[in-house]
């Protein structure tokens, strides 16, 4: 890749590629190197703390802008509008994709600079948990729901069998049946 102006050649390939190059350059704008290829493949192959802190700010700005100005209006909205009756698709977009995407600049990148105390760290982890469970929670709920329903079915059957066993025991031991027989209804009027 030496001796070739790769960035220029990539830009000439297609407008979409040129657009991607522009966006990547904006995301790493905080760094001094002007050549994107050299920046990404050489300078950032070993990330020092100063570069990381500087990049955090430019990444947050570029990501937030890209999500709110491009991804949501140009991608998510047209997909939803093209198939408005598709509830499964709406669930995927609204419950998984959009919350996860918007949390990146709004929660993750924005609040990393605030870290430094136990309390902030705990709140940050809770927020990260919230982001993850927003997308994964429905699978957890479904899993637990199935397990619980099965457990209750099994429990009901076991109680029924236990009831029959107690009844049979009562028939065999009439003295014990005084305790084992069902109670009369309370609200007999």
């Amino acid at each position, binding site marked *: 890749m030496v001796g070739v102006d790769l960035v220029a050649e990539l830009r000439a390939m297609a407008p979409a590629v040129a657009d991607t190059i522009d966006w990547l350059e904006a995301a790493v704008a905080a760094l001094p190197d002007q050549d994107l290829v050299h920046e990404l493949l050489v300078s950032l192959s070993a990330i020092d703390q100063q570069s990381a802190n500087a990049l955090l700010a430019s990444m947050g700005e570029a990501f937030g802008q890209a999500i709110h100005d491009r991804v949501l209006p140009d991608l998510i909205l047209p997909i939803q509008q093209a198939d408005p009756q598709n509830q499964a698709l709406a669930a995927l977009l609204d419950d998984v994709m959009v919350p996860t995407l918007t949390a990146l600049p709004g929660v993750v990148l924005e609040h990393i600079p605030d870290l430094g105390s136990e309390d*902030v760290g705990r709140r940050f*982890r809770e927020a990260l948990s919230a982001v993850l469970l927003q997308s994964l929670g429905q699978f957890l709920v479904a899993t637990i729901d199935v397990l619980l329903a099965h457990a209750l079915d099994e429990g009901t059957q076991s109680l029924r069998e236990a009831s029959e066993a107690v009844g049979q025991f009562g028939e065999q031991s009439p003295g014990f049946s005084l305790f084992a027989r069902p109670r009369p209804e309370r609200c007999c009027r």
Partner: protein
Amino acid sequence: MNAELFSITASTPADGRRHGAAAASGRASASAALERGLDLSARVEIGANVDASIRDQVSGTFTGGVAGKAGIALQAKFPLDLFREAGIIARVQAQAEAGAYLRAALGLELQVFRDLVRGQFEGPLRELCDIFLEEAVVEAGLWARAAFAAEIVAEAERHVATLSGPDRDAAAEALTILRILLPLAGRSAFELGVLLAGQPPQQQKDAAARSVVRSFVGEAQELLLRHVFDLGLTKVRDLHGGESTRTTFEGLTGEAQDRVRSDLLALKDAIVRLDTLEHARGSEWLAAVVACLEATETLVEHGLFGGTVADEMKQALALAWSAAVLVDRAAAGPSRRQEASCFPPVPWLRSPTTARSAPMSAPRSLSLPAAV
């Protein structure tokens, strides 16, 4: 399950059979008292002795006493603003009391369990549910699995293909951003949570910044290199289809033409093979790429390209090969990227042997040369 995912079983148990225990275990009892954030906790509290493993079989035993209590509480707080303690609180709570001694054996075959869970979803969520069930333990990092994000992006790609006109162009450009941001967003949330749970507060800021920047750089490197790879292949394709290639071919002897025809058929097979790799593992993808480049290199050696075209072809092949190797390494993660200076000495003449975990999308810009 705990209110805070990252503070308990952050590491997956070494015993594979117990892999799914964290998600399925009825013993998990977390009474969350969160003031903010989202809490989803499952509580089964009947003095129970529950042993559950999703991977092999979901089974367990509930044991209770006269005063036993069985219940499950699912609490979900979905705040609108994660840092201002405001939001919607949804709570579903079911409580059942057992008045007699209860001992119920719970046995549920894995496939039955899977079918029951899958039955609660439809469309793309069912595909994600399958991935969830395969992993079945949140702490191991579902979002860290490339397949999870890839499935969501693939669903978006399918819908973009149904759009038309300027809407489709704009959506396709936004899709490029989604491909980099969605995996980054999901994985960062997992990696940061796990990272911060093990760091003292005074080191958290720097460690978090390095972690998220490293993740982004990895994604950006891979995206850039994929474009460079496409650029190399585009050059190869254009050189294949050039008029000078046809002229050179017609000037070859009959025997040489037969060799070239054989080479072109081998190239055709290699391209067809590459084209079938929609989401192959890195090792498979790179091997298929190398096979295509090898076949093209053989054409160079057998004289199909004359004069400066041969040199241009070699340069294009070198560009595509080096980008493919670097894409493969970028996709393999930070530990592999540190070894990026170790190139195989002879391009396109050897296959990679290292295993990869990240799926790779097949390149779409390589098509059969017109000469074939």
